[in-house]
């Protein structure tokens, strides 16, 4: 049990030691780092519970057939649109999207659509877009959004093509 814990968290524990060592040599940087980590941790913890609860509900209630029908291989444009809207409606950092993507893959979404979902989550999240427009202006935001939509589709397409020979590893 303890050994298992140490094995899984060894990188984390090592990083704590590194951070402490840096703090010992350069107290200012060490303290600042701890503060930033603390701030981020609080922010993440406040946003992560609903994402994972929704993920759990998705896993239990949406069966494979439904998921395949709406976002699977033959779902066409509708599937792409659903993946895009799901990703854009999200909140939280990109790495919170990976477990959700894992469930989608497991349930039979096509890799292309899951990649669209990841792309949308990374750049076209609606709350982020409004914040971007407020800070950097509407012209910048809309130009970038237009480019991103094209980019997301191209990235998903090429990634899927290049992977066609192998199936991706599926966890969860």
């Amino acid at each position, binding site marked *: 049990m303890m050994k298992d814990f140490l094995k899984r968290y060894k990188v984390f524990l090592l990083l704590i030691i590194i951070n402490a060592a840096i703090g010992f040599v350069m107290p200012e940087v060490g303290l600042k780092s701890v503060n930033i980590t603390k701030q981020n941790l609080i922010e993440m913890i*406040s946003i992560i519970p609903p994402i994972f609860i929704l*993920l759990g509900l998705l896993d*239990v209630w949406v069966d494979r057939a439904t998921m395949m029908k709406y976002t699977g291989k033959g779902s066409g444009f509708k599937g792409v649109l659903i993946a895009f809207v799901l990703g854009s409606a999200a909140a939280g950092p990109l790495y919170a999207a990976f477990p959700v993507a*894992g469930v989608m893959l497991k349930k039979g979404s096509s890799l292309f659509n899951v990649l669209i979902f990841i792309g949308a989550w990374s750049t076209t999240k609606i709350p982020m877009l409004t914040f971007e427009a407020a800070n950097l202006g509407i012209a910048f935001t809309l130009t970038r959004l237009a*480019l991103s939509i094209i980019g997301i589709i191209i990235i998903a397409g090429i990634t899927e093509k290049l992977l066609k020979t192998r199936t991706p590893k599926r966890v969860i």
Partner: protein
Amino acid sequence: MFTYVLYGLAGTGLAVSFFKDRNKTIMALKKAWKSFENILPQFLSILIIIGLALAILSPETITKLLGTNSGIWGVAAASVIGSITLIPGFIAFPLAAALLKNGAGYMQITAFVSTLMMVGIVTMPLEIKTFGKRATIIRNALAFVFSLVSAFVIGMVL
């Protein structure tokens, strides 16, 4: 604000689910916890790496690197910094706005913002867990190239 919407959705979902099927709801919560616990070690490590990276690469340092007349090297620096670090949007966009005021061009800012959002070197272990090594490397490499392309396009248009 948006966080509340998510909580609302999750809460409503749980309530409806509980009303319909108690056992399934408990299973959903167990799965939620399991998926979370599954990524927890990487998640905690990533948070510390971000903390360290941002403590060393302070907004002042970033401003120096991407500031006035940083040109093509500014774009290079911007895309590398954006790929490695993981700055939450509520810090990144005001920082980008400040950089613009301090003389950085739209090109550098786009490279920074775009790689920040799409390329995640630090979060790769988590991505590999879901998609496998090959897909992860391909996606990140493509996203990096795309960020450079959009930086140049925006640099020319705006």
